[in-house]
């Protein structure tokens, strides 16, 4: 549900809100099956050194039946749905100015819920200083542009690593995710994408068809949304939550034609129970570590049980389960863990939670090469302020401020987290590994 201020600011008071200089959160466009990928034509802009890559990107976009433009000249009143800025071939900071300024010239013609996506290369060891600067600079550009865009539009970046081609499967899938309504609450983010073996026909409507996914903490909130979105994308889902949450859990399971597993993820045999539950459906393909708790206290007042229970549920359980799954040799396992912006930017009263969530980002990076050996990936998603039962308990004033802080000036929906997770768990995203993707509407602080 859109929060009440966003409804107010988009209702009859819209002109007043604008005049008073109040925050103007937009109604974000979210994914609906069958609706167009973008809200209008897509302009592809590249610097001279990236012309071939620009053509390759344009060709991919045309293959999706998008109205692809290579020139910024628009008809009177015409609006762009998205701008893709291809800088992957640039080698010197001075090379990119023409392309960047061209994009700047189009921003007033970008429709609401429009998209700007930069495609560039990650700085790598051994880069000449100028090349490193050229590549690193894109991140600062994207993050700043995210803060300038209005009307629910976002700026994000596909950052190619390890020589991945601009039209390689994972690069294309990431570009598509950023262009689409599925990334509604992802803003100002750079996602590194490597080469992948993923191939074959991609079913963009059912990217998880035939997969078996296990989602922990799925009785309500973000977990339930993940389960529903996974099922929408074609996965068979095992939903997991602690036994006392069983009533809500079984309702979620029955709503997605899935299986309910009442399990405390901190149990020693949790991984084996998860494997056993996934077996009748065809065996585990995707594991989403979503179960998490908060036990907020200032560190000065922190008791052992509050610290320990948060670490046990949010972090240690994930480590234990991953370790066991690696032992069991699950092929092609896709792990997505829930981190948090609290683990990136920190949050007063959440030393325990912040530790656990930063820990998740850490173990995700370390687990990535281990699962990659068996064709899998491990990634994390870091939600910002999301409208859930849990955050509804935050005092009104604090909650209202939390909503206004991100560039998108509103809280996200559980489905926004779910979309990012489904993308990371999909076959075409195989080249994204060890990363933490923030879904925070571009939270004010933190990288």
């Amino acid at each position, binding site marked *: 549900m859109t929060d009440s201020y966003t409804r107010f600011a988009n209702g009859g008071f819209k002109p007043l809100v604008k005049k008073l200089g109040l925050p103007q959160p937009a109604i974000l466009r979210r994914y609906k099956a069958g609706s167009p990928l973008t809200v209008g034509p897509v302009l592809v802009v590249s610097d001279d050194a990236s012309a071939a890559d620009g053509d390759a990107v344009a060709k991919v976009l045309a293959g999706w039946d998008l109205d692809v433009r290579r020139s910024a000249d628009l008809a009177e009143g015409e609006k762009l749905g998205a701008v893709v800025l291809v800088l992957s071939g640039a080698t010197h900071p001075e090379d990119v100015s023409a392309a960047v300024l061209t994009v700047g010239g189009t921003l007033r013609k970008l429709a609401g819920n429009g998209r700007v996506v930069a495609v560039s290369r990650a700085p790598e060891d051994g880069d000449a200083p100028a090349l490193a600067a050229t590549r690193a600079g894109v991140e600062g550009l994207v993050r700043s542009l995210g803060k300038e865009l209005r009307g629910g539009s976002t700026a994000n970046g596909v950052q190619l690593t390890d020589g991945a081609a601009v039209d390689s499967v994972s690069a294309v899938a990431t570009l598509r995710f950023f262009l689409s309504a599925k990334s509604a609450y992802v803003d100002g983010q750079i996602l590194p994408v490597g080469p992948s073996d993923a191939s074959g026909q991609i079913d963009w409507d059912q990217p998880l068809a035939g997969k078996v996914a296990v989602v922990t903490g799925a009785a309500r909130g973000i977990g339930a949304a993940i389960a529903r979105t996974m099922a929408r994308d074609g996965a*068979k889902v095992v939903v997991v939550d602690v*036994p*006392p*949450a*069983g*009533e809500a*859990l*079984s*309702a979620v*399971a*029955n709503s997605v*034609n*899935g*299986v*309910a*597993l*009442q*399990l*405390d993820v901190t*149990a020693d045999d949790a991984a084996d129970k998860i494997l*056993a539950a996934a*077996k*009748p*459906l065809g065996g585990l393909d995707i594991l989403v570590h979503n179960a998490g708790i908060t036990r907020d206290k200032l560190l000065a007042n922190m008791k052992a049980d509050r610290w320990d229970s948060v670490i046990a549920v949010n972090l240690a359980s994930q480590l234990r389960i991953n370790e066991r799954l690696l032992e069991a040799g699950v092929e092609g396992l896709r792990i997505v863990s829930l981190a948090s912006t609290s683990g990136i930017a920190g949050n007063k009263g959440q030393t325990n939670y912040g530790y656990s969530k930063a820990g998740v980002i850490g173990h995700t990076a370390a687990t990535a090469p281990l699962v990659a050996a068996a064709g899998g990936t491990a990634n994390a998603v870091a939600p910002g302020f999301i409208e859930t039962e849990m955050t509804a308990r935050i005092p009104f004033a604090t909650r209202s401020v939390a909503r206004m802080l991100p560039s998108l000036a509103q809280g996200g929906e559980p489905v926004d987290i779910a979309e990012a997770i489904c993308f990371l768990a999909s076959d075409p995203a195989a080249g994204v590994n060890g990363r933490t993707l923030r879904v925070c509407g571009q939270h004010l602080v933190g990288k």
Partner: protein
Amino acid sequence: MASSIPTTREAVIIGGNRIPFSRAGKKYVRTSNQDMFTAALEGLVARFGLQGELLGEVVGGAVLKNSRNFNLIRESVLGSSLAPATPAYDLQQACGTGLEAAIAVTNKIKLGQIESAVAGGTDTISDAPIAVGDNLRRALLQASHARSTGDRIKALLPVLGHPKWLAPETPDTGEPRTGLSMGEHQALTTAKWGISREAQDEIALKSHQNLHRAWEEGFFDDLVTPFRGLSRDDNVRGDTSAEKLAKLKPVFGKSLTGDDGAPLPATMTAGNSTPLTDGASAVLFSSRDWAEERDLPVLAKFVDAETAGVDFVHGHEGLLMAPAAAVPRLLTRNGLTLEDIDFFEIHEAFASTVLTTLAAWEDEDYCRDELGLPGAFGKVDRSRLNVNGSSLAAGHPFAATGGRIVATAAKLVHAKAAETGSPARALISVCAAGGLGVTALVESA
């Protein structure tokens, strides 16, 4: 296996689900039998991913029913996530309802008439029917058949003259033929067998301790789905003690006398008798093929069953003693003795029901004269008795008890067989009103 059992295919137990049992008048006050059974079904569907599945049959019932519950199980199926084409019917055999439903569906599976089924039951004291007296009921029926307003008024006039007719009839658990409550009946049997208060309290204490331990160990994590904010049976008291139980005042058998006319001690209390309870349970059965095709776990086989009745009306036998007769027939037919049983699941209608049954099997004269056995049937190893608690602790929503026990027994034998590598067996025994006993044999698969 004795050769007298015709060869049929196996019926297996895949798993079960129940809602936590709740003492009457507490958590499920505004909850109907249909709500509860539907919830038990929905939890089962969720546990095994049966959404949209066309099952062979769903069978169950309730002992206390409102008249609108005439097609209770079918209505519950229609309100569930199962395929609406799944057939269903109601069955009722007092407290034996749940287990008899299991017998009914497994027999169909064994015969190849169906591949899969759910058996279970539900009961509520909190939403029990309240009927009007026969006089008022007749007047109302006559009025409803009347053709004119005049006739209608004429039919209803006598009600005005008899305000007492308006008093409702509350449900009664007394035996229709004797007028005695079940507790008073059991008090007679308890006295006949000389069962002590201490022995009964010990059974009750063990029941609470065992059930509490099983909950703590997570035994019910895949057998129970929370309902209406309740996530555990609310009758179980892990902290009860022999001292606390000993303090309770007797409630049944307070005016019994011995052969010499001297008063007998009353031994049955609220602590060693089951409380009135609300709840529902459901168990998933199938052929082995059906389970294997779906890669569903097979916990146990539902091997065989036996029911019995006794003549309690003329005082020859105790109301709840029929299982004592059924079990020897069941085990003998299967070539087994009490020593071959790893788990005894004997429904605790009252602690003394369990004890009088065990005493009967140990009594040479009784076994010879009443059961036609050559001698004493045998002794039940107490360490194998209701190891994860029974009705005294869990409560006893009449028709739901059978499903609770079958699922528990199946999980117990499965775990034991996995641990020891050899087959494990459970004997289930449920006594019921009307002098009935329903028993079954479950073996690890």
